[in-house]
């Protein structure tokens, strides 16, 4: 319960401490400064998009961490039942790992200026990511077919138990973030297709790689929490 909160607190602490460090020992009222000695306007020597991605990842982390907090709190209720783990999730995890590796290869190629390899890497990433999403929907179908997802009028959602509800929530939230990544991936791929050279798409490819790493890490954490043995362990530790 406390672990996820620590993550959010650390994000805030990093931001606040960094800001405070910019402000101690600065006495802006003392003296005007000639502009040659003035620092440039930017706080980080990075492109705005990179900083933007960093801030966005902090926001997304906050979202996933709070969802996990809710999962832990809900776990303590008496009606909690172990999640029926659809085995296709292992396959999906493999697909996401492969798409991440493909993205890495695209990044390596863009650093070396080999646009053909970039194109191949990007296409592999896209195919594997879409396959991952299809696999997630297949997992939904599997659960549905085993009677774990039906609407409330026949009492199905309740019969399935809250762990299943969280499975749908986790996969939907993560899937939406994958779709967001695929939007940027699509724009980058189109640019490569239209003949952009490796240098022009390099930033996009770099940022996509960071984002795919992030998607993979988030998925591995969510997956771990869904594995019955681990979720039971968490539950045992929570409800002492």
């Amino acid at each position, binding site marked *: 319960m406390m672990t996820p909160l620590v993550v959010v607190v650390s994000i805030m602490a990093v931001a606040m401490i960094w800001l405070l460090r910019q402000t101690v020992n600065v006495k802006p009222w*003392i003296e*005007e*400064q*000639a502009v040659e000695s003035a620092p440039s306007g930017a706080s980080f020597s990075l492109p705005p998009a990179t900083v933007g991605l960093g801030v966005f990842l902090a926001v997304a982390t906050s979202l996933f961490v709070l969802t996990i907090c809710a999962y832990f709190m*809900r776990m303590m209720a008496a009606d909690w039942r172990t999640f029926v783990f659809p085995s296709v999730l292992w396959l999906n995890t493999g697909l996401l790992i492969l798409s991440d590796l493909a993205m890495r290869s695209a990044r390596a190629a863009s650093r070396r200026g080999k646009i053909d390899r970039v194109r191949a890497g990007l296409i592999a990433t896209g195919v594997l990511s879409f396959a991952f999403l299809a696999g997630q929907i297949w997992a939904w179908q599997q659960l549905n077919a085993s009677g774990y997802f039906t609407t409330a009028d026949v009492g199905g*959602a309740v019969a399935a138990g*809250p762990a299943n509800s969280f499975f749908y929530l986790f996969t939907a939230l993560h899937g939406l973030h994958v779709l967001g990544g695929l939007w940027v991936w699509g724009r980058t791929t189109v640019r490569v297709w239209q003949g952009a050279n490796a240098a022009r798409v390099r930033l996009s490819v770099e940022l996509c790689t960071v984002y795919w790493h992030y998607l993979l890490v988030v998925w591995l954490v969510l997956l771990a929490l869904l594995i019955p043995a681990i979720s039971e362990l968490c539950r045992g530790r929570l409800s002492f």
Partner: protein
Amino acid sequence: MVAVTHDESAYAPPAETEEVELHHAHTFIEKYVFSQDAKWIGIQYGTTALAIGLVGLALSAVMRLQLGFPGTFSFITPSNYLQAVSMHGLIMVIYLLTALFLGGFGNYLIPLMIGARDMVFPIMNMLSYWLYFLAVLILVASFFVPGGATGSGWTLYPPAAILPGTPGSGLGIVLTLVSLAVFIIGFTMGGLNYVVTVLQARARGMTLMRLPLTVWGIFTATIMALLAFPALFVSVLMMLLDQTLGTSFFMPSLVLTGQHLDYSGGNPILFQHLFWYFGHPEVYIVALPAFGIASDLISTHARKAIFGYRMMVWAILIIGGLSFAVWAHHMFVSGMNLYFGFFFATTTLIIAIPTALKVYNWVLTLWRGNIHFTVPMLFAIGFVFTFVNGGLSGLFLGNVPVDVPLAHTLFVVAHFHMVMAVSPVLVFFGAIYHWYPKITGRMLDDTMGRIHFWVTFIGAYCIFFPMHYLGFLGVPRRYYALDTAPFVPASAQELNAEISIAALIVGAFQLLFIYNVIWSYFKGKPAGTNPWRATTLEWQTAHTPPQHGNFGETLPAVYRWAYDYSVPGAAEDFIPQNQPPAARADSAGSAR
């Protein structure tokens, strides 16, 4: 105190800042509808927020008519009353104040004040506004669906919010939840822009510690909002699933009219935790920009440097950080571990320290200042008074044993209206009177402004001061009618009627403000570039209103902080931030 250098080497050529490629609008639609210019997006945000805010104001009139004169108006049914209460709260807190300060002032002022041409991601900025607009439309649509808007209070607590019996428990609550989700996605797009723009797009020489406090307030509030809104987003999604698919995230097992509902084991307290994890920072998301703007108004109109600039920045940061550790003080009556209550009461009271520090600094800035009682200054001083009043009643409510008996009374309504409704709104008005000349090139009418201030200020006290006493008497909040509560004396009703009359008068006088805004746009006195003789960069633009790209050929370079007022030895009583050091003695007056 300030070392004056007349060293020739201090002259500097305009800084070479990397120029950004601006999107140049050619058609009417690109310029005024799907605009990518942050200034225009700010105006779009502001007008939309004010439009929906007028709806919120009308809803409060409905509430006051019922409370002041119960049974007189047949069109106000108990359901309508609850819907008015709920939608008033939601609209005012989220769709008016958050959107106005961050979306409106953030967009207009951040690029101008930091010396940038625009936000760093203009297309995302445009999408942010249109998602906000869509969220407003969805919210308004919820009034017109069968069952009407939700009546579960602005906090939307389950299980009541989605159980039949609560007004709008069908489509009404669904649309509200969808609207909130859209709002949050839109806000995140805007918020990323504000943060990255402040970090990466400042003009050369504009260090973080030379930023005007307005930017500090908006910047910190945006960081908080980016981290807090996900809590609302996830709780909104979970409640949406509970309502539509019958999951049991928040819904416990329930028996309703003899029938066992299909829910089991859900945890309503979980929702409260998530909601207030967002809800408390939200108070400061509204308050911090107001703090920043008030600081700048006070300093400019008292012709004196802000007292303790660094302390003001630290106070903003500390308030921002602490406000994430106090959320459960909204849940003292939900039942919690005593040590939890102790912890949250303590953190709550600690916030009083940086907040009080800010109040002292405002007062000390005024002390021996050359105070000009302009309309913006009147509103800023009114804000300081009101904020102190609201803050002091917060000290009562922060203590668990005092909060428990008062939690469900009008005392709480009086407290939070003073501290986070009237106070930010006074700052908002002050800010409009201050920046309207920059936005339109004309001054707002002074006489109308003064009438507007005094009626609003005195009126607000006529409304909310007596409410504290009603709260002490135990008059409950949210109730449609008191009927025969034995502990409430009959005279309480007279006070309620007085409050209603004051509220209706104050509400009506806001129309004078709107009339002033429209009238002055056509007939107002031309403002010139810098009517308040202020130092910050937005007043140093070549054109008023500033054109697309904000600054002329070259971006300004910044040589000093934002508060060089009444500097000894200077020709004028202000030195613009972009004025080179040695040039100031002879040409302060002729600076653009």
